[in-house]
């Protein structure tokens, strides 16, 4: 008997007739349908740069302000209350088991992206010690990835929300390239992976370094925007 990871309600797996006849392994749900419905998927109507849900497909106001520092980000979900609560428990309370909630949706989203090498945004050493995990790689199942970036500054030592927009935009480049990064990146199409797109500063810093490593193209995917 398994329980929903988010609300502890007992789960009743639904077996369809097709699954029964084809003798397929049953998909094992980790959240109940009600909790799952709380997360809001971003449709094709989104900003082509940051991936935010909107009513048109034109570049949004926030992205216009970035000028020619362009980015191509896709996001899976909107950053609504359910997503905030999820990130709070997973990342800030450190409930590592909750990684399972987003594994399947992220696997599907990754399958729709065109890239050669996946590069997750790293966490700094202190976070690794206290939190005990990288919240981004926690979502990956069997997808190969390269830890091509290192964090030099404590770029995430306080929650992004605690800084003003001005402070966030002024942050110094926090990333450097890992020793063998050039070998991995040269001539390749790189997909950066991060948890939440807030201002886009983190991803732009990361993209800058990846290009320095010789990448041919850089796009990004975030769980939420």
């Amino acid at each position: 008997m398994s329980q929903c990871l988010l609300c502890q309600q007992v789960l009743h797996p639904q077996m369809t007739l097709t699954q029964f006849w084809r003798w397929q392994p049953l998909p094992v749900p980790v959240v109940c349908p009600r909790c799952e419905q709380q997360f809001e998927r971003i449709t094709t109507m989104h900003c082509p740069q940051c991936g935010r849900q909107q009513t048109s497909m034109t570049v949004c106001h926030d992205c216009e302000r970035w000028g020619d520092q362009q980015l191509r980000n896709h996001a899976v979900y909107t950053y609504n209350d359910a997503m905030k609560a999820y990130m709070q428990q997973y990342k800030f309370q450190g409930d590592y088991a909750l990684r399972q909630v987003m594994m399947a949706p992220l696997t599907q989203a990754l399958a729709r992206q065109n890239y050669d090498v996946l590069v997750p945004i790293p966490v700094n050493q202190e976070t690794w010690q206290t939190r005990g995990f990288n919240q981004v790689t926690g979502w990956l199942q069997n997808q190969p990835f390269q830890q091509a970036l290192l964090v030099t500054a404590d770029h995430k030592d306080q929650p992004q929300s605690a800084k003003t927009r001005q402070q966030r935009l002024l942050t110094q480049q926090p990333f450097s390239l890992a020793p063998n990064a050039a070998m991995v990146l040269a001539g390749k199409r790189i997909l950066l992976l991060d948890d939440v797109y807030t201002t886009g500063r983190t991803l732009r810093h990361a993209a800058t370094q990846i290009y320095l490593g010789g990448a041919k193209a850089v796009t990004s995917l975030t769980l939420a925007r």
Partner: protein
Amino acid sequence: MNDEQSLFGRQLPLTAGPANSSAQPAIVSVGQRKQCQRCHQWLLPTDQLPNQAWYCRQCLQLGRLTSQDKLYTIAEPNRFAQVTGPILTWPGKLSPMQGTAATAILDLVRQQRDQLLWAVTGAGKTEIVYPALAWALAQNWRVAWVSPRVDVCLELAPRLQQAFGHVPQTLLHGNQTAPYRYCQLTLCTTHQLLRFHAAFDWIIVDEVDAFPLATSPLLQTAIATAQKPTGSHLYLTATPGEQLQRQVRQKRLAVTYLPLRYHGVLLPQIAVRLIWRWRESLAKGKLAPKLVRQLQGYRRRGQRFLLFVPHVVDLKPVAQALQQAGIVGGLTVHAADDDRAAKVQAMRDQTVSFLITTTILERGVTFPDIAVVVLGGDDPVFSTAALVQIAGRVGRHHDFPTGEVTVYCHSQSRRVRLAQGMIARLNRQGKRLGGQRQ
């Protein structure tokens, strides 16, 4: 308050503790398994982090504990400031029947026995505990008054503040920001007890049958851990579950009964009315004519009422169907409702005439002169205890000791029959004590 005081009888994860504190690992291995030392639950083999540390998911809301953490404690010294002035400042007076129960409880506390006060809804059980609590505080005991429900704690806090005006008190629950204070009397949710270790000489567990204590081994453990080895506890309830009743039969729990309300009028009995397939009608936006007629009657006579429905999703269609029938002037309210407190207050202030609600208002909330109607009383969310509690909202006030309780069901239900049986049994006992019929 100094660092030491904050550790008296507590167990907290710190990077370093004061010199006279002792520390133990937060997660310990017992054979092949790992156990959390705060909540005493077993970890699953999957509860390991990539940095190799283990963490406990069961008590995560209190802040994550990992195998890298240590829990610091200082043995409870009962070092309280002398209370200046009388301990009990309650201006009220117990009825003779309440007084008898209060004396029985005090005798058992003196013997440090674990006990249960089984008092009907509206018996005034809080006040019945006051004499024993005053005695315990006079012994320099450290006492916790806890409830599984934060609502109950919030309602109780000002009452205890008034009744024990000179005794320093602290209120602890999940969503509060005020810093911890070391006090002789602690009022908190059962969850917060997990932060204590052998602290309390006496623990009063209010509404012991309320979710989730009844089903949660974690919270049972919390009481056992927070209590001193020499300590004891008192359970308060109107509707003890099977487990508690068994402990009473096995004499592991001493019991004091109070089957009669403080005003001496017997409990209102549940009237059952069948409405076949009400859910299908509701899907079409309709409610059964007899229910509509009853509620229209209430509105005409100015009788205020609570209408209980099984689920949050039922609130809106029911409200709409009532509006269609011209029954207006009420509000819907549920557990996660942001305006919950304001809506309940509006009902108290009589600015609204009725509330449509889920089981959240089954206990702890009191409105004078109220009628209660349950739609779908045969739904499993309405346990026998919940139904007795819901019926117990009616006739609590001295000036309005009677009222109607009507439960509408699709079919006969065992839980409803058991609830009627429990009320009938209490009323038979109450009548022997001179209780008057409704």
